[in-house]
């Protein structure tokens, strides 16, 4: 047992950081939101570069153009994406790699409809992955026209880095695109449950990254900002706020990492709950600690809070996870934490 990231995994993280520092520095982030548009355009060249680096394809087999890596490596990359507030339908496109042509290499931008509600980046996406109960299909986005169009109502998104449209009801099955591995009519069945679990976990990974980032921002501010003649980090109230932020982050981290190894529903639900809470509350605390400056548009902290709010509504919100984890207590084998059972280490 060595729970820590391996040498290769650390190299993967470092590579992602280098890429994001070069291609998505803070100015890019600010630029993308300070242009006041209802639905922001996606940086297609960055998207392709993510594709080239294997962000979308890394779990495909090498013969299919992937790196043959696992959920853990995906989680580590998504954590970095969350840390940097990387915009775009990252989860959906990652899941679509191998299912939708062009998703793996970043040529095709794929978003997802997981049920009636908000769909992110719908207007810039090429394809919508539709998860309808246990049926999986895909629709081509045709700019409001044509057979595959979704009747999405544009919404002024609370998160300026994530344009949203509201889709009130699920589209029909008729005009679906082919999904690789799907049965007749473009409708695939069966593995939507796995897709939902993985989407929830990758969402949790981004929440974790965001929580870590707002912790860093808070600590840095606490060391530098002076009030009443000393750094505010010397005040116990600030110290304890930061300590709780660290605790939230670390509990979320071990939960998310472990869930990436076991890929069980329980572990993923638990990781989601802890990561959602860490992202939202850390952003809240970071904002409070920044005082008035944290309340300004110019500070980045509100972007983390708003994205964390948004992510919390995506892929299995808290209510369902809590109920599922409660039910799991009544399962016959529920007595010991999953980690103690002799489970396979395989993410299957």
């Amino acid at each position, binding site marked *: 047992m060595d729970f820590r990231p391996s040498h290769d995994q650390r190299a993967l993280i470092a590579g992602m950081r280098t890429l994001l520092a070069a291609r998505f520095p803070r100015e890019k982030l600010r630029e993308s939101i300070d242009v006041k548009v209802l639905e922001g355009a996606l940086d297609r060249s960055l998207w392709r570069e993510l594709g080239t680096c294997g962000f979308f394809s890394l779990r495909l087999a090498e013969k299919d153009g992937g790196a043959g890596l696992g959920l853990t490596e995906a989680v580590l990359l998504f954590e970095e994406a969350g840390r940097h507030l990387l915009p775009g339908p990252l989860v959906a496109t990652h899941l679509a790699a191998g299912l939708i042509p062009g998703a793996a290499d970043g040529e095709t931008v794929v978003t997802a409809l997981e049920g009636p509600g908000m769909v992110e980046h719908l207007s810039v996406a090429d394809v919508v992955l539709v998860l309808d109960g246990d049926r999986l299909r895909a629709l081509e986005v045709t700019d409001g026209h044509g057979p595959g169009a979704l009747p999405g109502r544009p919404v002024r998104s609370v998160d300026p880095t994530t344009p949203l449209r509201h889709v009130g009801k699920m589209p029909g099955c008729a005009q679906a695109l082919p999904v690789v591995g799907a049965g007749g009519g473009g409708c695939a069945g069966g593995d939507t449950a796995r897709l939902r679990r993985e989407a929830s976990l990758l969402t949790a990974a981004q929440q974790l990254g965001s929580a870590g980032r707002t912790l860093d921002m808070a600590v840095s501010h606490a060391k530098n900002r002076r009030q009443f003649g000393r750094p505010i980090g010397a005040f116990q109230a600030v110290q304890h706020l930061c300590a*709780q932020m*660290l605790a939230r982050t670390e509990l979320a981290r071990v939960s998310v990492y472990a869930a990436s190894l076991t890929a069980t529903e329980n572990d993923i639900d638990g990781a989601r709950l802890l990561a959602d809470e860490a992202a939202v509350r850390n952003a809240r605390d970071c904002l409070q600690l920044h005082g008035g400056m944290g309340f300004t548009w110019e500070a980045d902290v509100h972007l983390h809070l708003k994205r964390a709010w948004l992510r919390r509504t995506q892929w299995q919100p808290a209510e369902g*996870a809590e109920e599922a984890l409660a039910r799991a207590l009544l399962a016959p084998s*529920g007595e010991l934490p999953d980690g103690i059972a002799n489970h396979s280490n395989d993410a299957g």
Partner: protein
Amino acid sequence: MDLAHTAEEEEFRRELRAWLDATLPGLPSKPSPDDWPARRAYDCAWQRALYDAGYAGLHWPADAGGGGALPGKHLIFLEETERAGAPYVGANFVGLLHAGPTIATEGTAAQRARWLPPILRGEEVWCQGFSEPDAGSDLASLRTRAVRDGDAYVVTGGKIWTSHAEVADWCELLVRTGPPDSGRRGLTWLALRMDAPGVTVRPLRTLAGSAEFAEVFLDGVRVPLSHRVGAENDGWRVTMVTLSHERGTAFAGETVACRRTLVELARAARDNGRWDDPVLRRRLGRLNAEFGALWRLVQWNTSEAEAALRAGGDGVPGVGASVFKLRYSHARQELYDAAADVLGPFSLDAAHEWTTGRLTSLAYTIAAGTSQIQQNIIAERVLGLPKGR
């Protein structure tokens, strides 16, 4: 990143499990919580059984008579004994987890030879004499005084929160040998015989109504110089070795036990109808996530300690231990508050084990460093914030 144990570790698990299956049915029934001598005898017999089977001091260095096991293997031991419902370490806690490791690390060859084997064999019981009424969280201010007189220290003062004092043979004692204002630079670590003249033990009743702790009064007690571990006035450093151990894997077994209690709460709620309340149900679901995460943190900390040991470090638990303590102590209190909600009016029955559990859980955010202190440690030592004032 990997949660799987090695084949050798899994073999160890299988053997241990077989031994536990064979051994536990033959144990005598548990003594009454109020019968301290019986509890000592029970705990020591269990320790002797472990010794005979080769499981005593698994995590101690081999040259101290232990198993020299890496933390991952020790974690399997804690998992499996808890899973099987084996006895807890009980009266041997201080010896095996505090005093013993300290002596193993800091003691002379003679001291190791004298004190370590009886601990491993369950023959001698140790207690801890650190806290004082006016020095709880702030050990640097403790006042129990030791003055040299020939070949001995003469110790006068008092200690508090000492578990198993009534039945202990030895006490690991922290005393002031420097001037009163010498802070942490004037402390010395001594091994005190509990039957020495001048030692008086008075039980201390807790809010749960039981005498879990004692006060120890020391009136001119002579402690031979040879019973000092480490140098004079170097006791703070020596003690920190011990305290770090205390904050390490000490709660691993308890985490498993809490998870089991949580399952029992859910079953009780199903049986008495409280399960129909979604507010309670979702609270139990969230506790499931929390204890699951705490278990992962135990595994994480174990991996870090193991890596540090492999790299030639001392494997002393680091960052994660304070985070664990902070969240675990709180989660344990939440667990027993939820239990009260499941029990409804029966939560007022002090005879119910969950009610006792609720009461004793109140100590968790206080003992072994209050939650406030844990947060100071995290802020200053982990996050590098300026020293709080």
